[in-house]
């Protein structure tokens, strides 16, 4: 099947304006601006069943519909912070298929009445940002951005904005704070960005991949998109496959594809053909799924993955085989979260620091059974108390790792 998101894999030089235009580029944006009312665009996206690809899977059209129309101006922000360990899809999209992404930004902006949109990229993506700046300039010159587009009264400008190296800035409110020039720390929610977003104004924050879907949805209509994927999760998803597989990489597949197909058909199976032990479907923020036969045959959509005691998240599938100790995995993730905790709320700031000491001790063989018990207790003590999801996610691998792979913790520990 031809790609929808990773179209550059089928069409060489799609990241140049002439090629993109030759392949229908900006037809959808033009159609929207010249022939559709903003709310009609939102309705199409709503009907398509498109859900946010950043991890939460919130229905995109519904989010657009929440924009407070009594408060102006409106903004659109593309979340290109892509900092979840194991996620590397947005970079490929922005480098390979930048115009489709930017066209998605433009259509979203038209749909919510925004005249300014921001692409927030993680600091390490400075080259990508420079590349996008160039593409944005080309769009301006070609009349796809700027004042009075396509002879209408609608005007739009897109700006890129670089972060400064903080995982937390992928959290949408921390991201907004960062654009405003403040410390990248999450805000209290509610209010949510559609009522109180960038500079206190209604704002839609969507992931890069989410927005990249939009032009083709508009072009081919909602039903076409809904026909892909599953009833629960419409359309296609770019799965970032990594870990102990032979062919790691991005794979664009319809929702509902099984883990087995992803790992074995596309990923070429496990290195040295060893058995799969666990799967982290949402990067470091994952619950660790026990990779038994049933799990491998589970279709990858939001609802099905949940039945396994996991979450699909941004579909950054990290595959663990039997050479990997789960205590090592847990130690790794906690080091990450301890480093990335913003420090705003107590449980996350103190809990991750505490857990890091415990996982380090357990993994290095210095711990005993009481340390494992304590680790589990500290993680559970953090749950449900943090200001944002970071602290909650930090506990996932710990709690599920200890619960589902107890042998990896008892082997290492001296009782």
């Amino acid at each position, binding site marked *: 099947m031809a790609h929808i998101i990773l179209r550059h894999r089928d069409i060489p030089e799609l990241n140049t304006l002439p090629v993109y235009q030759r392949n229908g580029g900006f037809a959808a944006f033009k159609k929207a601006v010249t022939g559709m009312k903003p709310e009609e665009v939102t309705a199409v996206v709503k009907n398509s069943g498109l859900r946010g690809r950043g991890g939460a899977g919130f229905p995109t059209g519904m989010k657009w519909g929440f924009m407070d129309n009594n408060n102006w101006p409106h903004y659109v922000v593309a979340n290109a912070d892509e900092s979840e360990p194991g996620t590397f899809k947005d970079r490929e999209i922005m480098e390979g298929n930048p115009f489709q992404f930017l066209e998605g930004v433009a259509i979203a902006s038209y749909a919510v009445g925004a005249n300014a949109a921001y692409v927030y990229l993680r600091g390490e993506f400075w080259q990508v940002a420079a590349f996008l700046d160039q593409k944005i300039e080309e769009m301006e010159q070609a009349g796809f951005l700027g004042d009075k587009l396509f002879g209408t009264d609608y005007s739009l400008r897109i700006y890129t904005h670089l972060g400064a190296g903080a995982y937390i800035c992928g959290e949408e409110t921390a991201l907004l704070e960062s654009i405003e020039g403040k410390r990248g720390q999450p805000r209290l929610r509610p209010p949510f960005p559609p009522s109180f977003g960038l500079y206190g104004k209604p704002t839609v924050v969507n992931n890069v991949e989410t927005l990249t879907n939009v032009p083709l949805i508009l072009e081919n209509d909602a039903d076409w998109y809904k026909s892909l994927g599953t009833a629960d999760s419409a359309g296609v998803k770019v799965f970032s496959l990594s870990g102990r597989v032979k062919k790691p990489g991005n794979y664009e597949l319809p929702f509902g594809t099984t883990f087995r197909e992803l790992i074995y058909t596309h990923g070429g199976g496990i290195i040295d053909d060893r058995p799969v032990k666990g799967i982290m479907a949402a990067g470091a923020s994952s619950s660790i799924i026990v990779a038994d036969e049933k799990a491998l045959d589970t279709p990858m959509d939001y609802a099905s993955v949940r039945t396994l005691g996991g979450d699909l998240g941004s579909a950054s599938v990290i595959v663990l085989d039997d050479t990997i100790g789960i205590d090592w995995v847990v130690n790794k993730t906690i080091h990450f979260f301890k480093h*990335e905790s913003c420090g705003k709320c107590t449980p996350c*700031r103190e809990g991750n620091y505490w857990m890091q000491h415990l996982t380090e001790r357990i993994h290095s063989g210095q711990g005993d059974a009481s340390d494992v018990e*304590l680790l589990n207790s500290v993680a559970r003590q953090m749950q449900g*108390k943090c200001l944002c999801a970071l602290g909650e996610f930090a506990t996932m691998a710990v709690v599920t790792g200890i619960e589902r792979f107890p042998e990896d913790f008892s082997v290492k520990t001296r009782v």
Partner: protein
Amino acid sequence: MRKQVRLTIDDRQITAPAGTLIVNAAKQIGIDIPVFCYHPKMEPVGMCRMCLVEVGRPIIDRNTGQPVLEDGQPKIQFGPKLETACTTPVSEGMVVRGMSEKAKAGQNEIVEFLLTSHPLDCPICDKGGECPLQNLTMEHGPGKSRFLYDEKFHLEKRVPLGDLIFLDRERCIQCARCIRFQDEIAGEPVIGFYNRGRATDIVTYTDPGFDSVFSGNTTDICPVGALTTSDFRFGARTWELKSTASVCGQCPVGCNIVFNTRREAKADGRIVIKRVMPRQNEQVNEIWLCDKGRFAYHYTENGARLSRPLVKKNGKLEASSWDEAAAIAGGKLRSADGEVVVLASGRLSNEDLFNLKSLADGLGGKALLYTQMGGGDLTARFGVGAGTNFGEMGAGTTILVAASDLYNEAPVWHLRVKGAAKRGATVIVANGRETKLDAFAKYVVRYAYGDEVETINGLQQKEKIGEAITSAENLVVLFGSDGLGLNGTSNLAAACAELVQGRAGKPNNGLIGVWPKANDQGAWEIGFRPTDDLSSELKGKTVYVVAADPAGDDPQLAAALKEAKFVIAQELFQTATADLADVVLPAQAYTERDGSFTSGERRAQRFYAAVPAFGESQADYAITALVADAAGVELADSAGQVFENLVVTVEAFAGLTYEILAETAEQWPVVGRGDMYYGGTTYENTRGLGAHLVGWGERGETASRPRVQEETELRPKEGQWLAVPVTKLYDQGLTVRSSKLLESHIGAATVTLHPEAAKRLGAGAGELVEISLNGTTAQVSVLLDETVSASVALLPRGMGLPISGPVVAGLKKV
């Protein structure tokens, strides 16, 4: 009024306005929900997670919109997670469980988290005994630590953020109260977080560090011992301290304070002041103080204080007895045949001033106020009405600040006016230069120095500003002495009074003088008046100078005093004036005696003796009574009696008693009780909120239209400059100079010039220039400010140069 909702907190049914946060709704019925980051004066942030409670809401039937009932009661659905009481507003039918097992467990777990990285060094911590973390640990903390002590995160324990505030990085729990105070309340975001996670640090952005005059407040609201003042750091254990209510004597705001005292070995067993703390008065200072008020008290304990009466014998001042000194002084006053001048300043209490005025009247002499600012007769008439409260001003109120740099002249008013602006009040600043308040003003009117009166007279003709003044529901006008002397301020006051005269006596309406001294308003009410030719008044007279140092301020006045017939000086220190005196009488500092001040808002407030007297010094009113007795005038010699005489003599004080001044009322937010985690270590007000003087309108008199005098124009000639006096918070005044803690904030004498003008002079920033004015020449260093006009030189008062009003000066490069 906001819609009231009914809810249940810990099985108690209450009603509260919709939108009230759970933590405050609980507080109002006496239920304490523990908090660290939440503070009732600031926006909620929900960071520390201490206030976790169970919150249930009625299940609403989607079809009917009515609550689903179960056994006739609405069915309540509790969320899966605990919620923060500090960020969740109350709603109809809500059920809050703050004491349930689940809520308690959540709170206990947060305390455990906080303690993992806290050094637990309570035995050497200044906050010990009044520490929210310590107290909540007693209530919620685990008895045993599950965290290995060796794994504690160690950080620097002695980080000076500025010279007044120290940070202990280990103790900090990252609640950001200090940062938010500086940002939201002080409007000076000079500190912030650096780094992230467990490594999050408080840092200062300024050089010099923590460059704010409100920095001390952060130590009151810090819920741990992370921020301490250099004044109290390792000074005492809090439980050893006694508290005495007082009123700050540094400026006309009249902030309510507490002196914390203890008997101290290193002070030879004397009782000494260990620190100054704010005392809540929501109508005056809320729970805040400026750093001058907090730290300048040290002048009272300076060893150079006068301890015995002195009498001039053979041209030299020699120690004497009270009897002898009073007899000589009184005898000279009596024999002066009415040629007596009592010269006193607003540093004195109402009681002191009343006795001095009575003495002057009894002798047929004059009672002169030593000041550079006029208009007190007008504030006495058109002052703000009883019930005035900047804390309640918001939309509908217009506040005009004319010729005043509130930040330097009365910092807490700056803070309060800024707060009113945030709540929607229209603030208009009219000044000859930029001041800190400009940033929070809706309108800024810039005039050339000399055009003050014209500018104020013209405001009502301006379209938007005129509208804001005339159609304001409430109008408060503050006027100061930025760039003005006695004449200028008198005229300015008259112009300002015209704006408010129809509103006089109404709460939140009227005129306020931003006086140089704490009790200038009281002095005016009692009948002291300044004169524009003090030199002539002094020559040949028998002069009784109290709490003023004219000889030290101005060589011309020193010369005049030398020509006086006889000089009696009543002071704390051996000033230049005391050097010229024939009799020197040692006065007690206001920390050592009882009395009352009248604030710029015409609120009379009591203060109480906190420490024993220095040496043989006596209270000013008592000294005056002693001297008066020898002069044949009978006066009361106890504070209470003097006040009783005052209220029957001076109409503005009619009906007041010390008991009335000592009355208190319930204030919101509730602070200073057992739950210091809520409001901070600010003291609850138990010794009196003070009372307003009787207003003009209430006295049944009609106001006459104030008269504007002609101002003599000052026109500098070619090559000359218009030197304009401005007020500097930390000047070389007696109370700052003698307080060693603030010495480094005084700095050198400066002159502020426009960059272009400085260039013409050939002087750059920081370079020295020579200035000549009023017969004095001095070297001062140059500061640059683009907002002053080209021929103007701004000179701070009280920095060694005799400048009371604008004057033509010469400047040249050194």
